[in-house]
């Protein structure tokens, strides 16, 4: 709050620095409170609706008249647990494989100098510009021939999510570039292999970016709908939560399933929320870390 420089209004001149600071802070905090209310209301509504047991359809009020766990218990008796498990498996496996691939890729491109390195990077940049949706139909055909659709959608989806992960190296390569090469060289002189340099020198220094990579790799499959629906169509056993729960929004279903749907939404949000809470301090660092030097 830079009030010390030439106050404009006469009112300000009479106020002390402290008073004007208080006023501007108050205004800013009021604004922030309003904004957070706007952002949080949908989530609060969903949580509250999921505890409403007096009716199962949409209603015109937010606070439930009767509270209870019925919707969560109902969830247990549907295919929800299967969908949830599918989603969890897909997201975890994808997170692990994709993180490994991305980090190896970034390390390679950051530290090694080989023929066609630049053209390769340019090629991947261009390839990344094609919208992935365009490939949906052909991917479906390929997966179908491999037998990885419908009931076997889980490995199929993992394959698809992981397949192009090497191209997402930009942020972490940028971060690796900021780590001085002399560290590598020192380690190499002491007899470390390339792999040891990555494990023992680079990765401990790049913890934020590792966390960031895991998080993004986890989030994409966790929330996917379009592709997951296309691959698992009409087969409950292969659906993820988003696709499965979408069925409850049918015209003749929503009256009976609305509050259960909210309960499902809350359960889906829990692991992501926990993950972010634990890892958020690394997250911001990770995203901006690579920006220092491209």
């Amino acid at each position, binding site marked *: 709050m830079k009030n010390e420089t030439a106050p404009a209004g006469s009112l300000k001149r009479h106020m002390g620095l402290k008073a004007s600071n208080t006023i501007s802070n108050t205004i800013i905090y009021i604004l922030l409170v309003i904004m957070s209310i706007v952002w949080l209301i949908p989530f609060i509504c969903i949580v509250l609706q999921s505890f409403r047991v007096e*009716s*199962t*359809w*949409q*209603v*015109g*009020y937010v606070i439930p008249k009767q509270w209870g766990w019925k919707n969560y218990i109902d969830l247990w008796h549907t*295919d929800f647990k299967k969908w949830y498990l599918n989603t969890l498996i897909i997201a975890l496996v994808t997170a692990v*494989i994709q993180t*490994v*691939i991305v980090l*190896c890729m970034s390390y390679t491109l950051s530290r090694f100098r080989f023929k066609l390195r630049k053209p390769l990077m340019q090629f991947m940049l261009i390839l990344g510009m094609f919208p992935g949706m365009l490939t949906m139909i052909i991917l*479906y055909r390929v997966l*179908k021939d*491999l*037998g*990885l*659709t*419908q*009931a*076997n959608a889980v*490995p*199929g989806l*993992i*394959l698809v999510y*992981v397949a192009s992960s090497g191209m997402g190296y930009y942020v972490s390569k940028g971060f690796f570039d900021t780590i001085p090469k002399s560290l590598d060289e020192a380690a190499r002189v002491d007899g470390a292999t*390339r*792999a040891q340099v*990555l494990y023992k020198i680079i990765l401990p220094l790049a913890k934020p970016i590792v966390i960031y990579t895991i998080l993004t790799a986890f989030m994409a499959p966790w929330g996917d709908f379009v592709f997951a629906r*296309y691959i698992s*169509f*009409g*087969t*409950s056993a292969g659906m993820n939560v988003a696709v499965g729960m979408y*069925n*409850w929004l*049918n*015209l*003749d*279903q929503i*009256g*009976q399933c609305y509050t259960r749907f909210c309960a499902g939404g809350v359960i889906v949000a829990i692991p992501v929320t926990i993950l972010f809470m634990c890892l958020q301090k690394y997250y911001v660092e990770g995203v901006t870390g690579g920006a220092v030097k491209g």
Partner: protein
Amino acid sequence: MKRILAMLLALVMIFALAACSSNTTPTPTEAPAGNGAEAPADNGGNETPAPANNGTSEIAGTYDITVWVADAIVDLTKKQIEDFNSSNEYGITFNATVEAVGEGDAATNMITDVAAGGDIFCFAQDQFARLVQANALSKLGVQAAETVKSANDPGVVAAATTGDELFAYPLTSDNGYFMYYDKSVIPEEDLDSLEKLVADCEAANKYFSMETDTSAWYIASFFFATGCHSNWVTDADGNFISVDDNFNSPEGLIAVKGMKKLVDSPMYLSSSDGAGFDSGCAIVVTGTWAYETVSGILGDNLGATDLPSFTVDGQEYHMGSFNGCKLMGVKPQTDANKAAALHRLAQYLTGEAAQLERFQAVGWGPSNLADQANAEVQASPALAALLKQNAACSVPQGQIHGSWWDIAKVIGTDVENATDEAGLQAALDNYYNAISALFTMSEAEKEAWSVIGNICGTNWDTDFPMSEAGGCFVSEPLELHAGEELKVRQGASWDVNYGVNGLNGDNLVVEADGTYTVVLDMTDESLTLQPA
């Protein structure tokens, strides 16, 4: 590093292989008897009178099938298939996987990949044409068709028919709308008049809810009231070939005037959500699917009846409704025996007993005539209101072009924004233009050549047909006058047209009065007039 990569690759391969092996479904154990040469469609559903001698050996066996039904009836359907397994005379046993797939999504899901879709699936009737076009439905056999026709509501049978053939089994006949109302707000004597109902709602400060902003399905109610129709004709492949539509007519104008009475009310709400009674609605126009919700909210105050009438220029018009249904289809099969067995199952699942069970379990209105007359069905408030509405004024929802819904729903907002009669008429004109533009010409019409010009009293707005004769296209004899100009074009559009100097050439100018035939010789692309 290399080792890890190698392991990863191996992992990926294992995934693929594991999935492959688990996907190979065991083939149905077929009966040893020689396979009949009948096509699946003909074989399908033939009620063999003496199954012990004939039917058993042909189609007996165990089949693995997938059945797609709505979530609400998954368990019931499993039970019904078990019943079929234990009771059928053909020696058929089904290993059924019953999946919950909403009837609204069935077509989208089927068309994604017909081969991987459910063997038997349920769908709302508006998807029928798309499914026939996508080859996702197999035809009913002659006897099965006869049985279905005689046992079911004629409107539903029409919905499952394209050309002259039946392609699906009627599952329900309850996809229409009527009026739920709050008895504590709406006096019974006002139920027949839209004007009084609107006044009651305004007096009580409660909403009159009907989804006319966003749904052509509800908008049509007003048009049907004044006797308008929109009939679409399909051929045997499910293609739309023509439409007979008179929404843009004096009757149509009366209809939008009636609609204006509702939408101009401050207490009008565009929604068909039964839960609206929880948030200030006194009347909601919607269907049987909302019954549980509405009865949960209103309890003893629940009223359900047919739609009211509106009055324009002193005459009353009873609001109409669509009378729609859900159908059950059988996917075409490569194995004729399996197809025949599936048709028998579908017939069982849509038969009188199964429909009644479904009504008792989830309240779906039967399409079977005997079930409709059942006292229990008659006693259900929602179905009673639906039947009352159907009796008063309803139009069976036949085959309707998919684009119609988007075109017609615009009427809703156009009418709401209109300030005078000209505005209302403009809404109808917009509709008419969109329908006309939509209707694609047949291949023959697209190919056809015609003469156009300022000839015979027309001014470049009428096409005179030409016929083909030995590489030439020749018009009928036309009476032409000196100075008149003409050209020849294909498909009544200017994409391909000929003038005196060939493709896209100049207009041909008539030099002297007389009766001529216009001749386009395709061998040298010359356009000439020849005295007739």
